[in-house]
């Protein structure tokens, strides 16, 4: 039980390391990492929120238009 929890945390750490390596944040200073991550989080959360609010209405009106 403890072993699987440890492995899960290791996996999360591995994912975090992949994020840092692929976006080259691994070589940046901590405040630069925070800046870029905040920026990325802002963009993604805005996109997700817009999708969440507007998509159902868009899809419904598209179905209405084509039917």
């Amino acid at each position, binding site marked *: 039980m403890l072993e699987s929890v440890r492995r899960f945390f290791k996996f999360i750490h*591995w994912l975090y390391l992949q994020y840092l390596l*692929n976006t080259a944040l691994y070589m*940046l200073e901590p405040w630069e990492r925070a800046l870029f991550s905040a920026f990325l989080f802002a963009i993604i959360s805005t996109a997700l929120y817009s999708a969440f609010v507007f998509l159902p209405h868009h899809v419904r009106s598209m179905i209405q238009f084509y039917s």
Partner: protein
Amino acid sequence: MTAAKKSKKTDMKNKSSKLSVSDQFHEEFEETPTWTAVITVLGYAILSLLGWLRDFLRNIGIENKKTSQDPNPKNFVPLYQSYECFYTRNLYTRIRDVFNQPIASVAGATVDVMERISDDFNWTFKFTGKKLPSINLGSYNYLGFAENSGPCSEQAIKSIEKYGLTTCSTRHELGTQKYMIELEDLMAKYLNVEDCIAFGMGFATNALNIPALAGKGDLILSDRLNHTSLILGARLSGAVIRTFNHNDIKDLEFQLRNAIIHGQPRTCRPWKKILIIVEGVYSMEGSLCKLPEIIEIKKKYKAYLYVDEAHSIGAIGSRGRGVVDYWNVDPDDIDIHMGTFTKSFGSAGGYIAGKKSLIDHIRIYTHSGCYSLSMSAPVVYQIISALSIIMGLDGTNDGQKRIQQLACNVRYFRRQLVDMGFIVYGNDNSPVVPVMIFMPAKIAAVNREMLKRGCAVVTVGFPATLLTESRVRFCISAGHTKEMLDHALKAMDEVGHLVSLRYSNRNHSRRWNELNRANYDNEYISC
């Protein structure tokens, strides 16, 4: 989607008897996977954006400038165009702790790396005093002669007692000692040529002797991936330089035909001579040159051939005599053999070998003959003793054992890396093993993680390689035992999983435990 450029040896009708290793010539340069290229470019874009932000903060004064400032007064023009350029400030300095690492012991099969820490993100370093013993996978110590005990170093020490350290003179003045003649004779015998001349510095051998061989009105055709010393020598000579694609015989032939048909650029006069410059083993790619085909072309179009065997002498070939031995060609077919003593012989310096008339000409006209110091006694005696061991003149077969050990090690290491799913460039027999990393942050990650696991490796990025093709370059040595190689492979396997370096589309990615190691062990013992 990803094409494999596999170049197999083509059979030549009149020389098939000489090519005994034709079926073993196997070179691969797998193409970059698309997603990897996209993410690499994105990574560089993010780094550039943040670099601009930091430069802006530095210029308006929020952050203080830590690079060296122009010391001239304000109304002078700047001494250097870009005083410490953008790349160095913002990309190189961030991971500067993995480059230029100081060592504290002899750089043999194992080396002690000095540990450094930095408080201000690599602008300044402090030594902790701790030494990290690691397996040395970065030195060009191909035959394992870089050691501080043994017959070579004893001879070197005795020579200091007899000859002192320096002749304080150039070759043309009083610098030609008895041991220089001995070295040159021995080297000529080793390479099976008429004569040889040795110089104190390998880089300078190229840079200062190509001007003696080519000049205005000549054409130099050099491979695109040639070393800087060859490019510098070619530029210094004043000849016209044209490049052909790496190891591409068709392109070389096309360029040759073009040059001969059209002549010199403005006047259309025929070229005075054409010199083709190739290297035996290319140190960043690990590829071998296709010597028999180049010799055939050179004879057809009557050009001269200059082969730089810096990394291949002593390390390639069944008797260790370089690419000439590997391809089994006649040494008289190559006009100018060049090589260095730095890599396989554990010393310093370079040589040029060939016909006696050529060497006599170089003895007089080389710049280093009258402007640079002749070689020092311990350096020369290290080479002489290493050469006698390799040639078997000391009575043992230690030399042949070393050469075979190197070939075994190379084969063992390379095959396992390729089977694990890494992209490894180059020929199967070259002792230089470049494994691709591509992304800038992973350069630092691989180096630090390998050092934590006890392997000192060399990771290279821009400007030694293309911007998006950074790699980690392993140099296998005959001094590495099987346990050391196993340790290095295990470490590389872990690091490859941690950093996700298994890019290959051709070989399925496998962990080290999943490989069938009995096969490799059998192959290692039997070779």
